[in-house]
C-alpha cells in the first residue's frame, strides 16, 4: 500500500529534531492560547505568521497546525474551570464541564476532555491519511442550499441542548440571530444596526459576546450577596483528579460517537466544527437513559463535544490538503504561511509537496501525543487554581478577559461592549434564560442567512431547492424529526420536572 510508504515518509520528516521542536512549541503555545480567555487561535496564528518567515516551510506549518489543535485542548480548560468558552467550539463544554467543576469534579472533567481529544485526534489523523481524498467530495457536495439546511439543523441542536423551557431557548436563539445581523450586509454592503459605530461595522465579535454573557456575567453573579457560601463549598468539595472507572465506562461510547460526528462535520468548510460539538452533545443527550442529568454535570456532556471538536479540528485540514481551499479563517492563514514560503496550495499539493503534506499529517499524531502528555499533569495545577480565594480570582479573570478582548482587534470599544454583554448576561441569568443557545444563534446566524440568500439567488427565488436537493432534504428531515422529538414531551407535560432549589 502506498499509504504506508507515505506515512513512513511523513514520520521521517516529522521526527527530525527541528520539526519535533516546532511541533512542541506549537502544542505549548496552542495550549496557552486556548487557556487564556479572549485570545483566539486566529489572532495568535496571525501574530505568529511573521515569525514563520524565517523557518523552513514544513517546520513553520507544523508549528501553526500545532497551535490550532493545541488550542482545542486548552480551550476546554477555561470553559470547565471558570465557565468562559474561548472558542465557539467549547461553548457546549462549558455547560456540563463547569457544573462538574462546581461539584468538585474539575479534575475528571479536564482529564476526560484531554483523553477524548487525544483519541479523537488520533482517529482523525488516520482518517486524513487514509480517506482524505475521497472525503473531499463531501466538501464539494455542500452548496448553499445544503449549508442552509445544516445551519437549521444546528439551531435545532441548540434547542435540544437547553435544559429549561423550550420557548425560552428558541427566544435566545432568535436573540442571537438578531445580534449576528449587526454589521455590514454581505450582499449589498449596507450597514445594519451599527449606529455609525466603526467597531460595529463588521458586527459583534464572538469573543466579545462570549466573554460578556459567560465570563463577566458569571463573575457578577458570583459576587451577589449569598453566593459566597456556594463558592466555599466548591473549594471544599474537590475530590479526585483523575476520572474513576465508572467515568471512563460512561465516557467511552460518548467519545466514540463524538469522534465520528466530529470527523465528518469537520470536513465541511465554515461552521463544521461548531456544529460538530453541538451535534455530539445533542446526540448524547438524546441517547441517554436519563437526559435530565445533562446540564447538571454529566461527564458524557464533556467527553462527546470535546472529542468532536478536536476530531473536527483535524479533519478540517482535508479541504486544505486535497483541494487547496482553506475551509476556515485559521486555514486561510495557513495558506498565507504557505504562500509566503512560495508554496501555493492547490489540488496537486499532495503530489507536489509530499514532505509538507505527509510531514504535517504525521506531526498531528505526534502533536496529539505531546498534548496529552502536557495536559494530563496540568490538570492538577488547574484544579489547584480553584482553591485560590474568589476575592483574588475574580479581579484576575476580569483583567485577563479585558486584555484578551482588547488584543483581538486592538479596540477599546470591544472591551466596553463585552462589559455591556456582561450585564445582559447577568440579566439573562436572573430571568432564567440560557446563554449557550444565544451564542450558537450568533455564530450560525450569518452562515444561515448568507447561504439562504445565496441559495435563493442561484435558484432565482425558488424555495423548493431546499427540498429537491437530496442532501438538503435529508438534513431538514433530521431537523424536523429532532424538533418533534423535543416538542412532544413538552406538549404532554412540563419538560423539566426536576425543580431546582430556589435561589431567593
Amino acid at each position, binding site marked *: 500500500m502506498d499509504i504506508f510508504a507515505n506515512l513512513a515518509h511523513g514520520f521521517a520528516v516529522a521526527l527530525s529534531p527541528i520539526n519535533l521542536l516546532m511541533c512542541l512549541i506549537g502544542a505549548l503555545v496552542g495550549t496557552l492560547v486556548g487557556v487564556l480567555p479572549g485570545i483566539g487561535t486566529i489572532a495568535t496564528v496571525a501574530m505568529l505568521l511573521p515569525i514563520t*518567515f524565517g523557518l523552513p516551510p514544513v517546520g513553520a506549518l507544523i508549528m501553526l497546525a500545532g497551535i490550532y489543535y493545541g488550542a482545542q485542548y486548552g480551550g476546554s480548560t477555561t470553559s470547565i474551570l471558570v465557565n468562559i468558552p474561548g472558542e465557539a467550539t467549547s461553548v457546549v463544554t462549558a455547560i456540563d464541564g463547569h457544573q462538574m467543576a462546581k461539584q468538585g469534579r474539575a479534575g475528571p472533567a479536564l482529564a476526560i476532555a484531554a483523553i477524548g481529544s487525544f483519541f479523537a485526534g488520533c482517529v482523525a489523523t488516520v482518517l486524513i491519511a487514509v480517506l482524505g481524498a475521497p472525503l473531499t467530495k463531501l466538501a464539494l457536495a455542500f452548496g448553499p442550499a445544503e449549508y442552509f439546511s445544516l445551519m437549521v439543523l444546528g439551531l435545532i441542536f441548540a434547542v435540544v441542548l437547553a435544559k429549561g423551557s423550550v420557548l425560552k431557548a428558541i427566544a435566545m436563539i432568535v436573540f442571537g440571530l438578531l445580534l449576528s445581523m449587526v454589521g455590514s450586509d454581505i450582499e449589498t454592503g449596507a450597514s445594519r444596526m451599527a449606529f455609525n459605530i466603526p467597531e460595529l461595522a463588521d458586527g459583534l465579535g464572538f469573543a466579545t459576546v462570549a466573554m460578556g454573557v459567560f465570563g463577566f456575567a458569571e463573575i457578577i453573579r458570583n459576587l451577589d450577596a449569598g453566593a459566597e457560601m456556594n463558592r466555599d463549598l466548591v473549594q471544599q468539595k474537590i475530590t479526585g483528579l483523575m476520572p474513576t472507572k465508572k467515568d471512563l465506562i460512561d465516557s467511552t461510547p460518548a467519545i466514540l460517537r463524538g469522534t465520528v460526528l466530529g470527523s465528518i462535520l469537520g470536513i465541511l468548510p465554515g461552521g463544521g466544527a461548531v456544529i460538530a460539538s453541538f451535534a455530539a452533545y445533542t446526540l448524547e443527550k438524546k441517547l441517554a437513559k436519563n437526559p435530565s442529568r445533562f446540564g447538571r454535570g454529566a461527564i458524557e456532556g464533556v467527553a462527546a463535544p470535546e472529542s468532536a471538536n478536536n476530531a473536527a479540528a483535524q479533519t478540517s485540514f482535508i479541504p486544505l490538503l486535497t483541494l487547496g481551499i482553506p*475551509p476556515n*479563517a485559521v486555514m486561510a492563514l495557513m495558506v498565507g504561511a504557505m504562500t509566503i514560503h*512560495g508554496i501555493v496550495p*492547490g489540488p496537486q499539493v499532495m503530489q507536489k509537496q509530499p514532505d509538507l503534506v505527509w510531514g504535517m499529517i504525521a506531526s498531528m499524531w505526534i502533536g496529539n501525543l505531546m498534548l496529552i502528555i502536557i495536559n494530563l499533569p496540568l490538570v492538577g495545577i488547574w484544579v489547584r487554581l480553584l482553591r485560590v480565594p474568589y476575592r483574588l480570582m475574580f479581579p484576575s479573570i476580569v483583567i485577563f478577559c479585558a486584555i484578551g478582548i482588547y488584543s483581538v482587534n486592538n479596540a477599546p470599544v470591544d472591551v466596553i461592549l463585552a462589559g455591556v454583554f456582561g450585564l445582559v448576561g447577568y440579566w439573562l441569568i436572573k430571568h432564567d434564560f440560557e446563554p449557550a443557545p444565544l451564542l450558537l444563534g450568533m455564530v450560525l446566524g450569518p452562515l444561515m442567512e448568507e447561504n439562504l440568500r*445565496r441559495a435563493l439567488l442561484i435558484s432565482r427565488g425558488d424555495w423548493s431547492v431546499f427540498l429537491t436537493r437530496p442532501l438538503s432534504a435529508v438534513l431538514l428531515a433530521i431537523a424536523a424529526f429532532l424538533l418533534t422529538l423535543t416538542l412532544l414531551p413538552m406538549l404532554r407535560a412540563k419538560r423539566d420536572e426536576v425543580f431546582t432549589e430556589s435561589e431567593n
Partner: protein
Amino acid sequence: MTFIRALAGACLASLCAFVAPAEAQTYPTRGITMIVPFAAGGPTDVISRIVTSHMAQTLGQSIIIENVVGAGGTTATTRAARATNDGYTLITGHMGTHAASVPLYPKLAYHPEKDFEPIALLAGTPILILARKDFPPKDLKEFVAYVKANSEKLNAAHAGIGSVSHVSCELLHSILDIKPVGVPFNGTGPAMNALVAGQVDYMCDQIVNAVPQINAGTIKAYAIATPERNPSLPNVPTTAEAGLPAFQAQAWNAMFAPKGTSPAIIASLNAAAIKALDDETVKKRLLELGSVIPAPKDRTPEALAALVKSEIAKWSPVLKPAS
C-alpha cells in the same frame, strides 16, 4: 541616500525636538508600523511582508505589520488616515481601499487623495476571468457571446462587496453591458470552492489563488486582464489578444503615509521601497506569486498619485450604479 536620511532625520528632529530629545537622530529611530487592511496571508499582506522585510534592512529598523480587517479594508484605512504623520505609521493600500472605495462607500471617512501622501507602488496582481471547468464556451470570444446571450441564467461569484473580485467583475459586466446575478461569498476561499464544485458559473479573481486550480484543471481561465501574459500562466492569453481589450484590471498594492508626512521621510521610504523591488530575492518571490513589478518610471510618489487619480476616475462610473 545618506543625504536623504540626514534630511529626514533633521526634519523629524525639528518636529519633535521638544517632546523627545532622544529621537533627534536620523529617521527612523524606532520601529515602523505598517497597517495592512486585510487578513494576514492574503495577497496584499504577503506582498507587504515580502517588500517590508527588505525595506527594514535598508532603513535599519524593524517594520511591524499590523493587520486590521473590516469593511473592505476601509476601517484600517480610516485609522491610517487619522494616525500621527510622523512616518512611523504607514499603510499598504490597494485598488479597493484607495480607489474603488470612493464610489462604493458614500460615507467614507477619508479620501484617498486628500488624506494620504503616496510613497510607492509595490506590485500588482493580475486579474483573470475564470469559469467552472464544464462551462461551455471554449475561448474568450465565445465566452463574451455566451454570457451576453445567457446573462439571465448565469451566476457570477465574487468574494464580497468591495473585494477585488467584486469590483473587477462589475467592470467586466459594464463593458459587456450585462447585469447577471452576482452571488456574494465571504472571501476568496469559499468563492473558489463554489467555482470548483460547479455551483456558480464564472468569476474574476486575482492570479495567486487561481494558478494551482487552473493547472490542475479544476477550473478554467479565459484571459488575463493585463497588457502582457504572465510567466506563471504562459498559456492564458491577454484580454487584448483574446478580443476584449477594454477589460484591463490589476489589483495594485501601494504604500501610503498619512497626509502631512514630511517629504524627506517619504523620499527615504520611497528609496527603500525601490531598493527592495530591485532586489533579486524580493523580485523572485513576487514573481512566484504571479505579481507584476512596476516599471522604474511608475515607482515614484508622483506616479502613484497619478495612478490613484486615474483609478478613482476609472471605477467611479462602474461602481456608482451598483451601490
